[in-house]
């Protein structure tokens, strides 16, 4: 029994990914005593900068920042003097097999040779419309999902519906025509919405790839327009963090420490202590105990349940948690290059952009097919950056890392992830890029491949899924991570989810952590 002792902390946060840190900082900002426990030596979860080979560092997993929630950043001072964060916005270069690559800068596409793109205006209009719709949804991302347990017509239900009603009013302000368009496409698929307006090619392909990155869906899957909007929430520009994604995690950590949070790395939680249906603290792997009034978990929902013990959950909740879909499909391949590769048809400075291999929507959809059956794409979708071009500090030896997110790669590969299979993944990545950058293969000095299974092993992300759970409508809002557990409280009193598996979901937004902390404070369990 630990309940008789005075708890050491007001809150324990499990996991020092950006959401865990955001939750910790938000709680500490309100004067609570918080400790963050991170099992690995490094903080940041998927946002980490590592040495890929001697003298060469790079963002090990996630590599670009595009969706940091401005409310969270402002509240926690991310990017302020106390928690500095330097980023550089880079253009998107969507590669074309015919060499007529398209460069998208400030939301406007043009051919790499500088000539105008015939669909520039259509593209800009479509993207700004999607962005407008995304902002509408933005209101939802900084609040807890509505609590409908009081019924829709009760007073408490009406109060909960207030925020939704405000969303409805915002939608009304869009005007009838836009509102109708919003309601038509919100549940639709990227393939149809994109190809209704754009020719199928690299430009449409770039949006299709953004719509499905990290998810187990293809552009034809209904719901992918939503995931595209989610991605475009902050305008759709992508930024390269100086010093890699580790710098983003560091900024969150600094903010947390600024408010007095203690961060303990190499501290693995063995079990969450539950007494009388209340979280009381944690037992660490070394057998020691830390007590607290609240336990916040930023790891996956299923994993959090296992850490707590299934016996503390109703059988239905266990079943739902078991059924969360989190099939990771994105691998990370970091290629250490002896020199900067030459891309046929690209100006040297354009290589510093975000390079996409997504030559058409159809290509992206076809790339999706094999992963449904446990195979790798034969023609993968790739998002690659060479951060050293924009951020020379990362490489001292003149070597460069080409950081590539490769889709679709199954978490559980038919035949297993043998050495041969990993080599195949690296080969596939090099071959796909070599089509555009002849000779790339001969520049590769070292390759570091992380399959979704590796990402799961290294970061704990369930299934190696970038969002800790598919961002599809059956796993969003009031049913994220699962029905009846969507309000951050995780069944047991004082136990909260604060990671990407909770509302609003994945990407480096910080919203899940921050919302969860606010909900815990509101529920009065931490103080």
């Amino acid at each position, binding site marked *: 029994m630990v309940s008789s002792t005075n708890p050491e902390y007001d809150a324990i946060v499990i996991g020092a990914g950006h959401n865990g840190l955001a939750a910790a900082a938000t709680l500490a900002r309100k004067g609570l005593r918080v400790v963050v426990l991170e099992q690995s030596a490094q903080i940041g979860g998927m946002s980490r900068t590592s040495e890929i080979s001697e003298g060469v560092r790079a963002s090990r997993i996630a590599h670009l920042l595009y969706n940091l929630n401005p409310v969270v950043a402002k509240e926690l001072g991310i990017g302020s003097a106390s928690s500095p964060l330097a980023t550089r916005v880079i253009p998107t270069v969507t590669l074309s097999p015919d060499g007529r690559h398209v460069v998208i800068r400030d939301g406007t596409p043009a051919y790499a040779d500088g000539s105008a793109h015939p669909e520039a205006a259509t593209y800009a209009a479509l993207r700004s419309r999607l962005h407008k719709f995304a902002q509408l949804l933005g209101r939802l991302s900084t609040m807890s999902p509505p*609590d*409908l*347990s*009081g*019924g*829709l*017509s009760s007073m408490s*239900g009406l109060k909960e519906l207030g925020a939704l009603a405000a969303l*409805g009013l915002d939608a009304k302000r869009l005007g*009838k*025509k836009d*509102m*109708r*368009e919003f*309601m*038509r*496409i919100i*549940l*639709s*698929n990227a393939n*149809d919405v994109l190809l*209704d307006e754009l020719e199928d090619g690299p430009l449409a392909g770039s949006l299709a790839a953004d719509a499905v990155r990290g998810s187990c*869906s293809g552009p*034809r*899957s*209904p*719901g992918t327009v939503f995931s595209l909007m989610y991605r475009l929430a902050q305008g759709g520009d992508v930024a390269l963090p100086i010093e890699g994604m580790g710098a983003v995690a560091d900024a969150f950590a600094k903010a947390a420490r600024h408010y007095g949070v203690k961060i303990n790395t190499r501290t693995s939680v063995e079990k969450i202590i539950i007494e009388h249906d209340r979280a009381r603290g944690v037992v660490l792997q070394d057998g020691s105990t830390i007590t607290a009034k609240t336990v916040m978990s930023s790891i996956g929902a299923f994993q959090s349940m296992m850490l707590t013990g299934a016996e503390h959950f109703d059988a239905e909740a266990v*079943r739902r948690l078991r*059924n969360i*879909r989190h099939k990771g499909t994105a691998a990370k391949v970091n290629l250490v290059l002896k020199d900067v590769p030459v891309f046929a048809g690209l100006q040297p400075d354009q290589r510093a952009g975000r390079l996409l291999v997504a030559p058409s929507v159809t290509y992206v*959809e*076809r790339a999706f*097919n094999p992963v*449904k*059956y446990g195979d790798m794409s034969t023609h993968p979708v790739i998002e690659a950056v060479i951060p050293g071009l924009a951020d020379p500090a990362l490489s001292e030896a003149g070597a460069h890392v080409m950081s590539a997110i490769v889709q679709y790669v199954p978490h559980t590969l038919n035949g297993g992830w043998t050495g041969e299979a990993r080599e195949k993944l690296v080969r596939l990545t090099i071959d796909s890029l070599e089509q555009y950058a002849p000779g790339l293969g001969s520049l590769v000095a070292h390759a570091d491949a992380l399959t979704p299974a590796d990402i799961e092993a290294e970061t704990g992300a369930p299934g190696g899924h970038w969002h800790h759970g598919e961002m*599809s*409508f*059956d796993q969003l809002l*009031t*049913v994220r991570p699962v*029905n*009846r557990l*969507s309000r951050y409280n995780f069944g047991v009193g004082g136990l909260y989810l604060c990671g990407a598996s909770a509302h609003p979901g994945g990407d480096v937004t910080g919203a899940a952590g921050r919302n969860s902390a606010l909900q815990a404070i509101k529920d009065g369990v931490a103080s």
Partner: protein
Amino acid sequence: MGKHSKYDAIVAGAGHNGLTAACYMAKAGLKVLVVEKSDWIGGAAVSRELHEGWTYSNCSYVCSLLRREIVRDLELPRFGLQVIPYEGGATLTPDGNYFAYLSDHDALRPEIGRHSKKDVDAYERFSQTVVRQCRFIRPFLLRNAVDPTSLKPRDLNEMLFLIRKMHDLGARELGETIRFWTMSIGDFLDEHFETDLIKAHIAGSGIIGTGLGVYSPGTAYVLLHHYMGDVDGAIGAWGFARGGMGAISKALAAAFEEAGGEIRTGSGVDRFLVKNGKVRGVALENGDEFEAPIVASNMDVKRTFLKHVGRSELPDDFVTAVERFKIRGSSGKLNIALDALPNFPAIPKGASFMRGDLHCSTSLAELERAYDDWKDGRWSSEPYFDMLIPSQIDPTLAPPGSHMMTVFVQYAPYDLEVDGVRSGQNWSDAQRKAFADTVFDKIETGCPDIRKHVLHAEIRTPLDIENEVGLTEGNIFQGELTFDQLIFNRPVPGYAQYGTPIDGLYIVGSSAHPGGGVMAAPGANAAREILRRNGRGKAMPSHAA
């Protein structure tokens, strides 16, 4: 009623929805003309003798969705409609086993248990969810679609009805409902069952007629579209219309004619006559013109507006929206005359499910791959099909001892790809035969001697369905059943209540809410809306009002 018009209302197309709308209007006292381009009526609910002595339901082939309120209002049994419930179905495996989806619940349990103990009770949970969802959705079928953008009292009233129904669900069921409506049939079944064969059997209902795969979100809802019917109250039960599906159209036509209506076949519409934004009547291909202040099109929304209304009469936004309406064909069909009942070695003697729907697709992955083929413009190399031999219980369909078999095939593309070009025109006779061969090869996995019994086979590609029935791209639902095309989005946002930008011109087919299937709800709802807008709302019989 304008003094120059010969009719009060004209319905273009004698499909089941057109006839239903016509019937309601005629019963309300309007003078109604139905014009039909074919020499027969029925649209996709037809019985045709295409091989001497054999009657084919050559499009739709079973019924359950026909709303009972409509059957009652229009007294269809009095006009000869007989529906014979059929007894379950089965999926046959190449190794001589099967899963029988027996209609007798007490027998179904051990049959499921034969494959998996665990799945027996999982089935109860599955069916509770499906029945609850059916119960939730059914009250909406014969109502106008909600319009969240409208503040009109009628629309607010519909919205309140919806909110009340959602409130009744309670928080948990609301969450489960949101999930059910947005998830894929594959994921839904994976959450319940462990036996792939059982999953494959049930999943078929989630993809029939769609351009979606079993793992596409939204297909669990499509399953509902096939389950929410009933044969006298038994949710999900299906039946054969005696004499083929044309019997439904025949009964509707007889009811219509008794109410004073007039049908002209062989009278295809050339264009809808419009003046000053108002419909005046129709001009037929043969040059005849008929006038009426109300014109209801049973054609799909694309055909109605892109082929038969002058573009200058329509707002650009509307035309764009109609052009973007998704109506991809994905289904083919074989209608087969058999000299005898072929042998299905796996099926026990006297098994009830022999008279039900038979399938040969044994896993969800197989079904998903069938979809992948279609996406790329090929028919499925391992097609899913829904195969029935209704002549076992309806001897009017074939000569004694002989049989009629209907095989609905998923997937077959409209725009077949040949040499890198995708076009409906690629459906040559050789391609059609190759398609049929693929289907026969698959049937042989459960019925090895099928080919030797075939006397005649009608091969229907999506192109054939478009050409003969008039369904654009051969889409059996007159438009895909995805969320961007359902409820207030169907057929296009702002026009989900049967009216169109042209005053007096209405959409009454399955392109309109609540969508496809032989349920006649769009026709009845549209008639109600037409009568209401013309000051005759009270003339609508009460059950479907």
